[in-house]
């Protein structure tokens, strides 16, 4: 059997597979890239060819333009392709629309690279699937025991209660434009909120794309205030309404146009009070698209690999945990993936 490090190993450009001559989520432009999902730190423009799920390819085209890569190779979940004797397939990762774990098989060795993943409810994408493997490469964004995300629906309920109690204020929900925003909207719908939801201009394209892929988002309206020569609502029309915007817009002047906005930030980082305070968040919503400590450790136990490799995030603690479990583990120390706004 081929040794694991010969099948996949870290390089400055990203995780590289020598026999297949491809990179997974490379951080620089390469000839052949396999992309786990559409977030900017994983999916970059300018590769010679991109192998990804059809959804991820559509997301990349929408964000970077149609010429984001030389050749597109869409591959559906659970289909597979062979390249130079290396078999590649995708399994759902439950992270965002189109997100996939990459399953690499060669000479009897199976390595699963999760990309980013979670195990919680998400109406916008199929749930994470367990794929048995020899080597399991797990992300570790929230790889510390302090990160125990509460029930997602309880957090959405917190938002709904606050909206009801503050009919004179606009609720500004900061959420990643890809994935988190649509997930929040879809969950609000599932929990019976049927008023129009207002979205920041930067989210329009991706929300449209989600709808094309059949994700139910209900009535969305642009969060625009009527100004000279521009259509939109009056400032007071936004009182008691939910507005979804990118996290960066929350502390921007943009937010000042709404009536005494309640700043809400939907993120796993909100678990830590001081993080919320530092960002000036009034209503933290602990909703994450990454696995928390419990999900990480449960998943690793369920997959039950021979060896665990840990990448981007707090690798040290997860490696320590594996050691206590009697599981061989090492950090991969890949650079270039960050998720401050998760």
């Amino acid at each position, binding site marked *: 059997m081929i040794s694991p490090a010969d099948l996949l190993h870290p390089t400055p450009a990203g995780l590289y597979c020598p026999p297949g001559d491809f990179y997974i989520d490379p951080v620089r432009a390469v000839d052949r890239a396999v992309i786990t999902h559409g977030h900017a730190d994983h999916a970059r423009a300018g590769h010679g060819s991109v192998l990804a799920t059809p959804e991820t390819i559509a997301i990349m085209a929408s964000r970077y333009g149609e010429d984001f890569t030389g050749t597109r190779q869409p591959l559906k979940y659970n289909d597979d392709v062979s390249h130079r004797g290396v078999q590649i397939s995708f399994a759902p990762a439950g992270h965002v629309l189109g997100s996939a774990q990459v399953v690499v098989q060669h000479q009897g060795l199976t390595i699963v690279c999760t990309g980013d993943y979670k195990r919680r409810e998400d109406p916008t994408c199929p749930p994470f699937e367990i794929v048995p493997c020899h080597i399991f490469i797990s992300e570790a964004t929230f790889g510390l025991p302090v990160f125990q995300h509460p029930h997602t629906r309880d957090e959405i309920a917190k938002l709904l209660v606050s909206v009801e109690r503050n009919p004179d204020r606009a609720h500004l929900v900061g959420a990643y434009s890809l994935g988190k925003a649509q997930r929040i909207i879809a969950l609000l719908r599932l929990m019976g909120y049927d008023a129009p939801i207002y979205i920041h201009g930067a989210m329009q394209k991706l929300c449209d794309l989600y709808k094309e892929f059949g994700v139910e988002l209900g009535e969305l309206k642009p969060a625009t205030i009527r100004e000279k020569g521009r259509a939109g609502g009056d400032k007071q029309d936004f009182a008691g309404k939910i507005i979804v915007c990118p996290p960066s817009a929350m502390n921007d002047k943009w937010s000042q146009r709404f009536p005494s906005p309640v700043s809400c930030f939907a993120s796993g980082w909100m678990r*830590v009070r001081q993080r919320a305070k530092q960002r000036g968040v009034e209503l933290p919503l602990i909703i994450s698209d990454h696995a928390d400590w419990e999900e990480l450790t449960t998943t690793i136990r369920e997959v039950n690999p021979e060896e665990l490799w840990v990448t981007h995030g*707090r690798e040290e603690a997860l490696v320590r*945990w594996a050691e206590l479990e009697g599981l061989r583990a090492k950090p991969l120390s890949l650079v270039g993936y960050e998720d401050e706004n998760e």
Partner: protein
Amino acid sequence: MNRFAALLDQLVLTPSRNGKLRLLTDYFAEVPDPERGWAVAAITRDLEIKSFKPAMLREMIYERMDAQLFDLSYDYVGDLAETVSLVWPGQHGANYQPGLSEVVDTLATAKRAEAPKLVEGWLNALDPSGRWALIKLITGGLRIGVASRLVKQALAAFGDKPIQEIEELWHGLEPPYTELFAWLEGTTDKPVNAMKAPFRPVMLAHPVEEKDKERIDLAEHIAEWKWDGIRVQAVSDSGIKRLYSRTGDDISGAFPDILAAMTFDAAIDGELLVFDPETDGFQVRPFNDLQQRLNRKTVTKKLLASHPAFIRAYDLLWVEGKDLRALTYVERRQRLERLFADTQPERLDLSEQVSVSDWAHLTKLRAEPPLAAIEGLMLKKRVAPYVPGRPKGEWWKWKREPFLVDVVLMYAQRGHGKRSSFYSDYTFGVWRSGEDGDELVPVGKAYSGFTDEELKRIDKFVRDNTVDRFGPVRAVTMGPDDGLVLEVAFEGLNRSTRHKSGVAMRFPRISRLRWDKPAKEADRIEMLEGMLA
């Protein structure tokens, strides 16, 4: 515990003062005695739980999880109570959640050996927020950005009473303050302050503005120097001695030298100052020296010798059982002088009364005070009673003109609260000679002094001229020919070893935006150094 935890959570995350006040008054209205009183004591830090110590918490958590995993977590979160609250393994089936009062009562009677078991049981049943609140409560480290004055303000608002009345009562009350709440809710009379040596809320002055001058008849007023120390109240009552700050905080612990000198039975209003131990009489040292003695619980012998404190007495509020506050200023002053003649207290002297003939004379005195530690003049109406708060037309303060310096904006940071989307915190510098010619050296920070309109213009300047970012801080263009010049007003200058420039300003604020002035014409460090005595 959950209601208390929710209150703390919201207080931490609510930036505005009014928002915090509303949270507190809502809480007082919803939560019954004695629970709400314990909550008040926890926030004002008047609650002490002796049977539990923070070290016990660490032991308890190390028994439950891998030490390395805990340390990594603590490292990341940076707050012991929060880390423990998040990693504590909740126990299924443990669902008995204690109330706040139950926790306080139980721990008050528990022995040290029993406390950890009790706390464990509660931690098992509570959720992370509840655990955090519990740990903060019992370890006494409740840093949630709520000053005790704000709580008193909330109590005043809740009962629709003047805050002075609450402050006056405060030191005689004990948690959980049931008699206070009964009075605030109108079910009983005001509690009688049985405490010896209570704090009496202070009387404050209005600043003199140009338009006031014709209304103020100098013949009806007495002038005194306004000293650059801190306003205090020294109260000695049948052997009980206390020194209070002007907000009623008891600062006795840090000033045994003053306490020892309180050989009278009276309540004296005055200025706390530090004098030079090398000279005769009370040669007042700069505010910086006084600062060494503030904000500490105790004081070393060395500091007592090098930075001795004294009180310059302004007024007498109470003497040997008699409340003098209804008397006139002149009458109180006579009683004060008599008290000094009778008791001759060390470490206290009388504030000098300055005779002034007219406004021209006063203007001259204000511009050229005899000592640097004088920050202006006070005008007190001869017939004024001592009224807590800031009554109109009784006392006036006329501070000397601030110092002005032209500086260059160097860094800007986003503000808080309603300013959170604006760059409103500014670091500024002046020129000095460096190895490669002139360079800017930071000399201070300012957060105020500008109008909303000016704020918008500076904010735009920052956004348009950012050259670098360090976390939340932006560096702006700052060369001899392009850079924003600000006129900064400040009250005084001290030597500082903590600042690169070697100087530290007192109360700097933006007084004007000098869009017209080229950056190279801003002031130089030598100009500030020349101001240091």
